[in-house]
């Protein structure tokens, strides 16, 4: 083939087809946005609005592909697999929950997406599909409710958790009390403030500072923090490896760990922060009946027993 593609010709031709493609993309984009089934309007997140056309346009490049990849709602229990977005602090319990739920409601299976609740929230806001959300933060649950992502009537408190300090089994920094956390040279891991456990830890530090230990203790403790991890299990791992001297985690993590993994220092309940987990069904779930079964199961004594086994504290009756 002798087709001499001079740069000039090429540029002109690609310009023409580029323009054609762009117009096709935007045509496809308007179609797909109008036909998308009741996507929740994120009125409270102003930044999302501007990018939607472009974001959709990139996915619309293969014109033959249907605009949305979510299957049509089919309520056939035999087919269903529930996608449960789960706070990372439930990592230990998730396997047991999954297998015992499948046993109780065969053959519905469960896939867990375990991450910090702040990450799950971002994913949901950016279009990730989930049937059920188990959130470790009331704040994030409320935000998602207000943004229209959750079936608000389905959102219920699931369980609770307290903050605890864990130390490597060998206790290399010889920490005997909460006061010792402020000793110079102690290495502490905690969660970033966006992570629910990080928010809880900051609240606990404030409570302790204001009641017993004072502001200078708090400042010294915070200056001993060597890393702000992005999920609660990441802190536990750093402690288990012995890479840090202490970590702020949930009580469930200390309870569920194999004996000899950690030493722990409990924080008195009156200074502690009670983190309430919620469970709720996503508005866009195509498996709402099964999702409701799952929620029912988690709130039932069977589900609650699994959670207690993994060190979670049941929701006190007046919350219900």
């Amino acid at each position: 083939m002798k087709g001499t593609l001079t740069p000039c010709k090429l540029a002109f031709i690609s310009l023409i087809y580029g323009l054609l493609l762009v117009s096709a993309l935007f045509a496809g984009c308007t179609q797909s946005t109008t036909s998308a089934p009741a996507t929740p309007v994120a009125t409270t997140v102003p930044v999302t609005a501007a990018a939607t056309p472009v974001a959709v346009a990139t996915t619309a490049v293969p014109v033959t592909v249907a605009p949305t990849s979510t299957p049509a709602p089919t309520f056939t229990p035999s087919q269903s697999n529930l996608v449960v977005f789960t706070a990372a602090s439930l990592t230990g319990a998730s396997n047991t929950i999954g297998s015992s739920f499948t046993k109780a409601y065969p053959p519905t299976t469960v896939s867990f997406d375990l991450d910090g609740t702040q990450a799950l929230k971002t994913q949901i806001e950016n279009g990730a599909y989930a049937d059920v959300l188990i959130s470790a933060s009331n704040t994030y649950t409320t935000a998602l409710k207000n943004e229209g992502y959750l079936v608000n009537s389905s959102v219920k408190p699931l369980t609770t958790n307290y903050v605890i300090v864990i130390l490597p089994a060998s206790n290399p920094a010889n920490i005997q009390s909460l006061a010792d956390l402020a000793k110079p040279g102690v290495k502490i891991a905690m969660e970033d403030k966006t992570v629910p456990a990080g928010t809880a830890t900051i609240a606990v530090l404030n409570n302790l500072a204001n009641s017993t230990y004072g502001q200078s203790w708090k400042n010294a403790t915070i200056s001993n923090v060597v890393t702000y991890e992005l999920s609660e299990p990441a802190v536990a791992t750093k402690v288990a490896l012995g890479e840090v001297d202490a970590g702020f985690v949930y009580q469930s993590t200390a309870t569920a760990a194999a004996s000899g993994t950690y030493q722990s220092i409990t924080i008195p309940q009156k200074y502690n922060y009670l983190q309430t987990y919620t469970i709720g069904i996503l508005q866009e779930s195509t498996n709402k009946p099964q999702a409701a079964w799952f929620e029912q199961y988690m709130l039932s004594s069977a589900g609650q027993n699994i959670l207690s086994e993994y060190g979670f504290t049941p929701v006190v009756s007046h919350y219900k």
Partner: protein
Amino acid sequence: MRPGGFRPKNYRRTLTYLAAGILISAVTLYLALPILALLIRITPDMFFATLHDPEVVSALWLSLFTTAITLTVVILVGTPFAYFHSRYSYPGKVIVDTLIDLPLVLPPAVAGVALLVLYGRVGILGRYFNMLGISIAFTTLAVIMAQIFVASPFYLRQAKSLFEQLDPAYEQTARTLGASSLRILTQVTLPMTATGLVSGAVMTFGRALGEFGATIMFAGNLPGVTQTMPLAVYVGMEGNINVGLTISILLVIISFGIMIAVRLIQKREAGRA
């Protein structure tokens, strides 16, 4: 369209142009649209306001500081290494060659775990450092070490192949004219390979600047100490999305700046040759 445009020969040519045009515009759009989306998503006012956020400022300086050190170390150690490696054959050279390439295919998170279990406080080597009172993990040093591990292969490979491809006749001529080894290196070998070395260094810089997985595993995430720009983007996307977007745009600007600089250098070199 020219007259006779539908003669079979021209028709075929038009088809070729059409296919090429579609292909080129599709690839271009695929690469350009995400960057464009990033710029559209945030208003200029919001961008400049967030630019002064202490989290953004400290991540920016930390990233520039650590990548500058990474680059310096890689160039100072990597250049003579690559030179000797390409000039001499020694037992186990194949293994060294493979090891140089390994970080390119190794997932960065794995690199981070590996560094942690070696240099961490209870790591195989780290425990001895710890006895001497030196801690590496969760420090700025760890950030630099992670970057060097992950990014140095780009420079080493480039330098190695440049030195291998350089015709030995040049060096031999210089030697017969009585030049010392040092003089040959600085006045013959390095000038002849400079352009290639610079582009290798730029690749290393870019990779180091974008390092995420190994850093978060080995160095942790502490603002001002180990929270580099990619980590700040990640944290920002889960909290203050404007911080994430602002740093992303900064990284785009830096990347473009690097590419333009390289083009200019290469152009100047080509003009001189």
